[in-house]
């Protein structure tokens, strides 16, 4: 069955430090992959997406993610974290099951310390 795993429930980084949030997926075919961010009390905002082509994708707010087929991973990175990046981050995978469905990982909460 299709699944998305985010192994880190929460991560704390210092402002200005680099960030990597991990995501692994399970799906038999080439997935469509996404990262969304959720601030408290808000909906989910798309950070970036991967459908095909270049495996390093750029998103908004300085984020990037790299698709590694051999590792079934789609890790999110940012070279220098800002305090405003503190939020919950969700990795998601979409696939065609007759309908077209997106499922989400459990999320990683990012804390940024001064």
């Amino acid at each position, binding site marked *: 069955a299709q699944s998305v795993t985010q192994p880190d429930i929460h991560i704390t980084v210092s402002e200005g430090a680099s960030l990597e949030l991990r995501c692994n997926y399970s799906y038999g075919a080439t997935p469509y992959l996404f990262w969304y961010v959720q601030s408290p009390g808000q909906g989910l905002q798309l950070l970036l997406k991967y459908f095909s082509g270049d495996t390093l994708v750029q998103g908004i707010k300085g984020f990037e993610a790299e698709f590694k087929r051999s590792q079934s991973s789609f890790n999110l990175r940012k070279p220098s974290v800002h305090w405003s990046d503190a939020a919950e981050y969700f990795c998601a995978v979409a696939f065609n099951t007759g309908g077209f469905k997106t499922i*989400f990982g459990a999320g990683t909460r990012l804390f940024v310390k001064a």
Partner: protein
Amino acid sequence: EPEVTQTPSHQVTQMGQEVILRCVPISNHLYFYWYRQILGQKVEFLVSFYNNEISEKSEIFDDQFSVERPDGSNFTLKIRSTKLEDSAMYFCASMRATRTPLHFGNGTRLTVT
């Protein structure tokens, strides 16, 4: 930029009552979804809707739930007889076509007392 809008932002209801959560998807989108997020937990798929019918539903989406697109703009989720465990944030999302990302509304927080 067009947005998915959801009303109300917060709904409080008593157990056993019916609630209808409303959504206006982005106008040129064709695929519609409801997701649920219990406080502090993951975002869970409930149902997808395309071409005026349900495409897929999760095991959460039992007979107490229904969806409707009554006109060309609204997309509603009805819970017939609410239970305490239905308390959650409910997100509506829409998508223009397959292989495009979901666009989410800001959610309706449902509190069942």
